[in-house]
């Protein structure tokens, strides 16, 4: 598996360009089917049923906001979609590949940003990107790493250990990490948590770039207003069940998903 990075020199595009990303995604993408399709999907941990009978279809290239209060099962659902967790019942496909059988193909195409991010405190920002690239089999030039960090405004602290970073700066490293490789599906778990206004705008910008490149995006957040701002469709996850939601109303709303949950109850 030798994949050319978004920031690779051989793409023939300037580092960090959206065109470069699109080119890579299109060449590696399976041809048909939705980005995510789940049928009667459930997940339990012991007796605790976290996801119950979820039916979900997310079309390719679209952005879905998945809102819900804390503990609703948003993170569990995202981890199931990237095959870190296996379904307890039901099944489905991600990027056209079976969730139970074709986990490696799915992991090649799906990127997950968790609240804390998969980054190491005692590595520098650039070393973290370098590690990600090596683990994904990406070819990235030294300039490519710098360009990726410049894109998130961290070029000046590229050599500093992540341990010294603020929450917002850490999140930027995670975004740079995600942007490093071509993706078909980007899963963002609470991407706005701990970010200032500038950081939030950066996330919105990233989502727009992903969409322009044909990447499907799922944003899971308890902050309904922020999550729906960049999305075309909104669903509420409450007590492990998916419910439709008036997207425009949610986008206008400054209510948190906690409030939405309380109102509905």
């Amino acid at each position, binding site marked *: *598996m*030798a994949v050319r990075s978004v920031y690779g020199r051989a793409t023939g595009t300037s580092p960090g360009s959206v065109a470069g990303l699109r080119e890579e995604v299109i060449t590696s993408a399976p041809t048909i089917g939705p980005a995510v399709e789940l049928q009667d999907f459930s997940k339990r941990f012991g007796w605790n049923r976290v996801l119950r009978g979820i039916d979900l279809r997310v079309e390719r290239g679209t952005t879905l906001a998945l809102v819900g209060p804390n503990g609703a099962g948003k993170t569990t659902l995202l*981890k199931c979609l*990237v095959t*870190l*967790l*296996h379904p307890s019942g039901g099944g489905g496909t991600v990027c056209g590949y079976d969730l139970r059988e074709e986990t*490696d193909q799915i*992991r*090649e195409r799906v990127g*997950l940003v*968790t609240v*804390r*991010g*998969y*980054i*190491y*405190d*005692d*590595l520098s920002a650039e*070393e973290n990107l370098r*590690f*990600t690239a*090596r*683990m*994904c*089999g990406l070819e990235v030039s030294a300039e490519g790493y710098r360009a990726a960090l410049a894109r998130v405004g961290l070029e000046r602290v590229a050599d500093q*250990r992540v341990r010294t970073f603020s929450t917002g700066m850490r999140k930027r490293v995670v975004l740079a990490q995600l942007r490093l490789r071509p993706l078909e599906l980007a899963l963002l778990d609470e991407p706005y948590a701990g970010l200032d206004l500038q950081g939030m705008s950066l996330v919105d910008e990233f989502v727009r770039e992903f969409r322009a490149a044909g990447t499907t995006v799922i944003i899971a957040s308890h902050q309904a207003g922020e999550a729906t701002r960049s999305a075309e469709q909104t669903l509420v996850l409450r007590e492990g069940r998916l419910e439709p939601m008036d997207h425009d109303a949610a986008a206008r709303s400054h209510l948190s998903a906690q409030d939405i949950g309380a109102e509905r109850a």
Partner: protein
Amino acid sequence: MELMRRSWAIVWKDLLIEARTKQAFNAMVFFAALVLFIFSFALGPDTELLREVSGGLLWVGIAFTGILSLNRTYQSEETSGGIEGLRVYPGDPRAIFLGKLFGNIIVLLAVEAVLFPAAAVLFQIEMLPHVGELAVVALLGTIGFSIVGTFYAALTVNLRAREVMLPLLLFPALVPMLLGAVNATTLILVGDPMQDSDIWIRLLIAFDVIFFVISTWIFPIALEE
């Protein structure tokens, strides 16, 4: 090829972090030195006795010290979201096992490079004439210890009582390896005119090969949720 490249990425990352923090190495060296000191005081100045039991003392020290390293094998991933931070990457999950295994072997060998000369001084035994044979035994023993240890560390990483569970599970499985390493080391140090240590070295080789094949084969299953 891809498997090895990803394994070395993990080794590079772990050793870089260890070189910066020195948490595992410093703790292991001090602990190992402490164990040797305690044995040395407990057994007194009888150099003949010390030479006869030096193989056992050395490997007890290595085994106890190695546990410290093994406990940190996957715990060091916790700051980055745990072992799922490595599982989220595409590719053969055996790369995680191999990467962690190579890392453990390198760190443990570095500790042994301090431990063996320290034991030579404390127990007043001449190691220099046997350095080649001792290096072979140390390498084979360390590889065997790290193979089984890295595997069991993955099994116990999500347990609440992992610090207790790891040695409880590990040491019974290590009996053949410890038997081989202790006997081979002792024979080399006290004199081995009949080359009896060869039998124990063969046992170590067989142990390493068998456990490497089994551990590498079933590691992806052990790693699953």
